[in-house]
Structure formats: structure tokens, C-alpha cells
């Protein structure tokens, strides 16, 4: 590790999902805040092991859906009943029934955009640079290895103590990652 670069965090590698899950439980119980687990696939129960709350993406999707339905209904009313009313086949200018199918589709469309946008926003993606992505060994995180990273910014972080904690969780490989 070169001396002039700032350390981003300490990285511990594990071989199985069970190992990393137990490690996450220990790190959670030690009271760390700025840390994360990196796995090739979502591990069932990891949110609990990390002490994460239910994701907020649902709210973004819900707001999107409400916007979509309202947009659909208002748009159709505006087009066919307000801005240019035109009698077609003796049908009412605006009816919630014939306006329903397009509004329903817009509800779905906006919910999809809302939840993907919300997911991107909460995850701070897209992100084209990340200190971990420069790290050679970390490329295995999308293959078949499991990593735990505690950031140096965490108030509880101290190089010796944190390393000891991670060693106690049974990690076979621990090293520092530069910013």
C-alpha cells in the first residue's frame, strides 16, 4: 500500500455465504455504521444479519403509480372532454370506464419508472468509479467470493481493532483498500 493514498476501508474475504453471514452479524453487533457486504447474488437473511430496514423503493413505485393513474385520467379528460370535445358514436365525452385502460397502462408504466428510478437513487447508481472496483481481488465479488468492507470513515474504525474483529470472524484474507 502506498503511503500517499488515503485508505478507503478494510476488506475481508470469505468463501461461503454462511461465513459472511456470521461475520456480518458480528460487525452489526459491534455497532459499525459505514460498512457493507458484497456478494455475487442476494443472500437470503443478509438484510437481517446486517440490521438493514425494509427497502424504501416501494414508496417510489407507489408515487409513480399514483402519478401515472392521475396523468392518464386528466389527460384523457383534457383531450376528449375539455380542450376539443367531439361527439363520437353518441358516447359520453368523458367516461371513467373508457378512460380506464390507458390510465391503467400509465399507472404500470410510471410505477416501473418510479421504482427503477428510486432504486437507482437510493443506491446512488449509476456510478462509474468506485474504490473497490479498482481492487484486483474484488473482481471475485461478482464470481464466487464474498466480501465484507468496513470504511475508514466509520467512527468506530481503528485499523488494529477492526482487523482483529475481522480476523475473529474467520476471514482468510484481509487487506486495506485505497481511496
Amino acid at each position, binding site marked *: 500500500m502506498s503511503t500517499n493514498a488515503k485508505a478507503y476501508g478494510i476488506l475481508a474475504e470469505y*468463501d*461461503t*455465504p*454462511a*461465513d459472511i*453471514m456470521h461475520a*456480518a452479524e458480528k460487525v452489526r453487533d459491534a455497532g459499525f455504521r459505514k460498512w457493507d*457486504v*458484497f*456478494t*455475487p*447474488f*442476494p*443472500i*437470503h*437473511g*443478509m*438484510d437481517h444479519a446486517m440490521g*438493514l430496514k*425494509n*427497502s424504501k*423503493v*416501494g414508496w417510489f*413505485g407507489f408515487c409513480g*403509480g399514483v402519478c401515472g393513474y392521475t396523468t392518464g385520467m386528466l389527460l*384523457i379528460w383534457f*383531450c*376528449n372532454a375539455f*380542450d*376539443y370535445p367531439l361527439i363520437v*358514436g353518441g*358516447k359520453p365525452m368523458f*367516461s371513467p370506464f373508457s378512460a380506464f*385502460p*390507458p390510465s*391503467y*397502462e*400509465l399507472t*404500470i*408504466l410510471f*410505477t*416501473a419508472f418510479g*421504482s*427503477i428510478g*428510486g*432504486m*437507482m437513487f437510493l*443506491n446512488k*447508481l*449509476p*456510478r*462509474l*468509479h*468506485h474504490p*473497490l*472496483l479498482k481492487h484486483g481481488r474484488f*473482481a471475485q465479488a*461478482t*464470481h*464466487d467470493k464474498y466480501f465484507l468492507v468496513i470504511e475508514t470513515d466509520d467512527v468506530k474504525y481503528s485499523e488494529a481493532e477492526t482487523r482483529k474483529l475481522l480476523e475473529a470472524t474467520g476471514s482468510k484474507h484481509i487487506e486495506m483498500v485505497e481511496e
Partner: protein
Amino acid sequence: MAAEKQIQAPFAPAELAREPLVNNNRSVGWISDQVSAITEGKTPTWWWAAFVPSFLMMCLLGCMLIYKCSVGVGVWGNNHPTMWGWDIINFVWWIGIGHAGTLISAILFLLRQKWRTGVNRAAEAMTIFAVMCAGIYPALHTGREWLDWFLFPIPTSNSLWPQFRSPLMWDVFAVSTYFTVSCLFWYTGLVPDLAILRDRSKTKIRKFLYGLFALGWTGSNRHWSNYEKCYLILAGVSTPLVLSVHSIVSLDFAVSQLPGWHTTIFPPYFVAGAIFSGFGMVLTLLIPLRKMCKLEDIITMRHIDLMCKVTLATGSIVGYAYIMELFIAWYSGSPYERYAFLNRIHGPYAWGYWTMMSCNVLLPQLFWFKKIRQNLLVVFIASILVNIGMWFERFVIIVISLHRDFLPSNWGYFAPTWVDICTFLGTFGLFFTLFLLFMRFLPMIAVSEVKGVTPQADPHHSLGGAPEGGPH
């Protein structure tokens, strides 16, 4: 207590072993190696052998569309009284094929059918490409396609707005939403797998491109948590979406007054038929691909078996709908309605009706037998026949209903032109070109999802690192 346990031990119920989703106990790393290899190795000869004709057929499509746009809709066989011909048949057929992809990715996800992970990526790609092929037809059948933007509510100096009381307008919204949401769903699923390809890439250009589209995915669990919620919502909205799309397509017909079209059974019957034909296409694509790409351990015989069962179930629903249509035609007491159906059975197009009946109702009944579901050649041929049958279903509904309506003086006989035929062949070119490009450059299996359903991924399983005999 200990003694009691010892006595009970020999009588403890044996744990029922579930058939594994990935055969031969393959490791998590093997899955990414095997799937990424398809995009990394030298282009196989069979790929070129499939790509060149597909590409030429796509060029044929381009020529046909240019010809049609410059000469007019008269180059197609559509004419009085059959004003909707192969254009709408092929539109409904292609969009129906797309439905299986969404069923696999969304409905089976909500039903927690974990086997979907082996086939969902390829099926979703199939959906998107099929909807592209479908979209060409309604866009061009308008006659003056340069005015297609009138379909969208865009303020213009004419102050005219689309007419939202027509099901054709609903269709515009349904199909465009379907295409957009399918692309979003597909891409969301692709992000973690693009990160796999990025992290394995050896060349700068691959690293840059996969890195760009992977959006900086790291596999962080804080990200996975939001990602999984987003995926659940997408599955939750795609389910009512896919059911609504073909329902709305069917309303294009059912809302009219024509005998043979004016039926309340259409929405569920169209949706079942769409899923039926879509599974036919998934089987047609995946049976050769699993062999060519050596994916037999991921797309296993169990996957084929389950897909055959879905085909059998939806084929039987379609069969029920055909018989119910006949019954209602008789029971309605309307002479026009009765005639429309008698004309299907023994009119000038009876051969079309009986092709439909045998391919869609009788043929899938073979899938009751496990021996047949396990015979790849039979399943492959049957899957093609299913799609032929479903094409004829749309032919029967559209052409046979239109060619003889209320007044015998209004009757006629429809035949397609060479442009109709070449355009249809051309859409196959487009479809296969896109599909071959997809499987060569993108992970055709949802790698991180397949990894997630293996026992190696389960922290409570001994293969996932849990102590042997520990609590499950």
C-alpha cells in the same frame, strides 16, 4: 431425553429431496464461467450459419417495408371485405409470443417458481424482440405511417387529440407500455450480470462497454436490498400488465359488432393463447440452444418438462375456449353468429380451422405423457406446430370472420400477396438476428439469479457453509 432421541432416530422421516435446479451439483463459479464463455470464446460456426440467413431475411424485411411505404397498403392482400389480413394476424401472433417471457419473468417470480431463473433471461429477450416484430405491423398498416405520431397525445396546430374511446387507442398505450416495461425489467435483471462480464473482461473495450452498462454495480448488499424490492415491484406490475395487453388486443375485436369477434370470452382466451404460443417459442429456441451452448445443467430436462406442462395447461384452456365459442354461437340463437362458426368449420377456409384445432387442442394433449415430455425431438417439433396452430387461430378469427359477414353480396375471398409473405418471413429475420446478437454478447442466463437458487448459495445449507446437520 437423549435415550428418547436415540429410539426415535431410526423412525425419523426421511427428508424429501427436491430435484436440484442446477444439475451435477455445479458450483457458483462454474455457472458464471459457463454462461460468460458463450460471450467470450471464438464465434462458433453454427452461430454464423444461423446469423447470415437471418440477417439476409432482415434485409428482405427492410426492402418490403420500403416498398410498402412507397407504394401504399395496396401491395398487401387486404381488400374489401377483408380489410385486416396478415398485418393484424402477424401483429397478434408476434405479440402473443412475447407473453411467455413476461409470464416466466413476472408471474412465476410472484409464484416463487425458482426454476424460472434458468430460462427467464432468454425468454425476456424473446419478449422484447417479438414485440418489436409485432410493432412493425400496426405502425405500417395505418397506410400513412408518417402520420403515426397522431396516435400519441402531442399538442399540434390542428388542436386534434387522439380518440380515447376507441380500443385501438387503448392498444397503443398497452403495447407501448408493454414494450417499455419489458425493456426496463430485462435491463434491471441484466445489471448484476453485466457486472460479472465487466469483472471478467480481458480487453479494454469489453471492460469499458460492460462497465458502462453495469452502471457501477458492486454487489453491495445495501444495493441488493433495494434491487430485490425493485425487482419484486416490477414483477408485481408486469403481471397485471401482461394480462391486460392481450386482453386489450382482444378488445380490438370484441368491442366490434362482427359475428365471430363480438364475444365476451375473448380477453381470457387471448391471454391463454398468447402464453401457449409463447411457451411454444421458448421451447423452439431453448431446445437447440441448451445443446449448442452446453447449458444442459442449467436448462435441465426438468425445465423442459415443466414448460411442456404449462403448454398442456394453456393449450387445454384454449381448447375449452374454442368449444365454448361454438356452444355460445349455437346458444345465442343469432343466425349470423351461428353461420360465422359453421363457416369456420366447413366454409372455404375449413382447412385453416382444422389446422388450428389439431395443433392447438389435440397436439398438446400428447404432453400428458412423461415419455413424450422427455423426448426432445418430439417436444421441438410440437413446439413449432403449436406456433403454426396459433398463427392459424388468428387467421381463423380475423380472415374467416371478415370474409363473410351479414350480407352475402358483401362476401369475398382473401389471399395474401407475395409482399405479405416476404414481410412475414422478414420479421423472422429480424427476430433471429436480434436473438443471435443477444446470445452472443449478453449473458443469456440470469447468472446471479441461478446462483441464488443453488444450495451453495443458502447459508443454512451444508453446501453453503452451514455446519453439517445444523438447523434448517
